[in-house]
């Protein structure tokens, strides 16, 4: 999508997040910059350990500090730099302007309070409502996310619900204060495919209804293809490619993106004997190479790649960019 005459809702610049470990500091997110525009869905994709979840958590300052630390960078949201806010100001922000849904709905909900109680708490925390009003609103939200008999189910506890239902409750809770930005971290990974289809359909529909922007953090390129406008591909803490969704899937520029797309097992017309692979494995974040972090696994790597790390150059017209000396073209 073109970004002319629009101001981004969220603008992340040169963000670096470090965790101190027994073996030394690890940069989980290393100098990333990206924008999210109003009403836009941006996917952050990558494999385990690439920094996608940490990115999502850092936006809301939900990483444990210490051992985590924002070393540098800014997170501009709606005119304010979130890295400069106090914890109290952040609390106001969380759940009302920016909401988050998590992968595991069982651990994200409190098992000892009924679903209704938890939803009412959120509503009353951010809005000036009586208990009765908040309850009505909560019932409304449960209905909106497709929970049958919401008036009855609102008094149930999380363990009485199935995984899909719990994730819907999470979504209802996240949306109840009308956030401008929803961060969804692997929202359907713990669900079965048929439930995933139900939940994703619901999320996309609600995003439209509520006019929110969404950041969808996932490892599943299929989910990204179906619900995002734009995607960011991460590898070892870096953004290695960002592109409009059609471009990313049909003209991937980075050899890693290409490899990732090729190696997804997909249902094919004719079976093949060998799946394409990316050889080798992700380097250890404690011992990163100097040059491009993908160079060791890359079929196109040259000496240049091993010496100097390429950076993402964003094309001002398309908004696409790739960190590679030898893009696929």
């Amino acid at each position: 999508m073109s970004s002319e005459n629009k101001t981004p809702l969220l603008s992340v610049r040169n963000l670096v997040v470090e965790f101190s470990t027994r073996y030394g500091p690890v940069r989980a997110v290393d100098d990333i910059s990206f924008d999210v525009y109003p009403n836009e869905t941006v996917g952050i994709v990558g494999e385990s350990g690439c920094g996608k979840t940490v990115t999502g958590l850092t936006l809301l300052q939900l990483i444990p500090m210490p051992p985590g630390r924002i070393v540098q960078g800014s997170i501009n949201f709606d005119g304010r730099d979130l890295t400069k806010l106090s914890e109290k100001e952040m609390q106001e922000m969380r759940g009302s302007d920016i909401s988050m849904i998590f992968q595991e709905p069982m651990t994200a909900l409190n098992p000892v309070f009924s679903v209704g109680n938890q939803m009412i708490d959120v509503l009353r925390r951010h809005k000036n409502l009586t208990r009765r009003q908040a309850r009505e609103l909560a019932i409304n939200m449960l209905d909106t996310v497709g929970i049958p008999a919401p008036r009855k189910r609102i008094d149930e506890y999380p363990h009485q619900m199935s995984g899909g239902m719990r994730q819907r409750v999470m979504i209802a809770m996240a949306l109840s204060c009308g956030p401008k930005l929803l961060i969804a971290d692997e929202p359907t990974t713990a669900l079965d495919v048929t439930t995933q289809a139900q939940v994703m359909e619901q999320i996309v529909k609600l995003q439209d209804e509520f006019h929110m922007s969404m950041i969808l953090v996932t490892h599943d390129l299929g989910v990204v293809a179906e619900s995002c406008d734009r995607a960011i591909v991460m590898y070892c803490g870096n953004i290695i490619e960002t592109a409009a969704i059609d471009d990313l899937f049909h003209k991937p520029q980075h050899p890693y993106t290409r490899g990732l797309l090729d190696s997804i097992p997909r249902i094919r017309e004719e079976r093949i004997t060998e799946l394409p692979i990316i050889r080798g494995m992700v380097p250890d974040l404690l011992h990163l190479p100097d040059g491009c972090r993908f160079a060791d696994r890359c079929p196109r790597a040259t000496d240049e790649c091993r010496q100097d790390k390429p950076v993402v150059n964003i094309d001002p017209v398309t908004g696409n960019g790739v960190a590679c000396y030898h893009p696929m073209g």
Partner: protein
Amino acid sequence: MSTLLKVVDLKKYFPVRGGMFHRVVAHVKAVDGVSFELEKGRTLGLVGESGCGKSTLGRAVLRLHEPTSGQIILNGDDLMTLNREALTAHRRQMQIIFQDPYASLSPRRTVAQTIQEPLDVHKIGTPREREKKVEELLDVVGLRKQVLSRYPHEFSGGQRQRIGIARSLALNPNFIVADEPVSALDVSVQSQVLNLIARLQREHGISFLFISHDLAVIQHVSDDVGVMYLGRLVELASADDLYRKPRHPYTKALMSAIPVPDPKKKSKRIILGGDVPSPMNPPPGCPFHTRCPDAMPRCKEAVPPRINVGSEDQPHFVDCHLFADESAT
């Protein structure tokens, strides 16, 4: 081709205890009357959503879970009639690869000890021969000899899964149950392990019962595919047939629910309503009728018979009333 494994009406019920005297108050019907045949050197893929009983079936076939009733005929011997000693002897020809490469390897044993253990248990060869066999196995799964004295924590998920595979091959089995062997792995590593399994199947003529929730993975490795729902096989056919022309309404919904990694191909989706019923109290008649878009009155009353909608030599079995008139012969 000859039959390696024949499973007839296999059932595995888990007792549920409760009440004042801790009596058995109900049963979870995890596997409820499953029959299939597996030919030598072929792979049967077993697909279904969580809780459908696919893993229980895999373990029951090896008698790792003691089946409630039914027959398991491996190479002409009914495993159900064997005593402990005879069963242990038979275990040499049947092995299992587990889902979680983190939990299925002992953290206190080196790679060499782990892979050698089956040889020690069955007292095969001299110590020197065992060592040699372990080295051969490492080579087969693509690990270097230098790793022999290392411990599991030093390896990535993909490498651990290779160690688990090497262990399962130690006794030259002719039948391996692979229970979600790639589900815990990232896509780029997943395809490496899938290619390895496909190669073992081709080069060593091993028959696999390959269990997965991922239809794309199942298509890649399987000759035949069984679809499970609520403890029963609802469709069973050759992979080519099943993927080209799924017949059971559940299989169709499952296939349409998979997100397609291509933004230009928005799939036409069959969204199933509701949740999977509890296996403690499965619905009467067809287990799928509560969610089936094509359910008829008859489906609520009678359990559908197994109908062959294929031909005599290319059978395509489907347990569904919709095809009652189509039965070949």
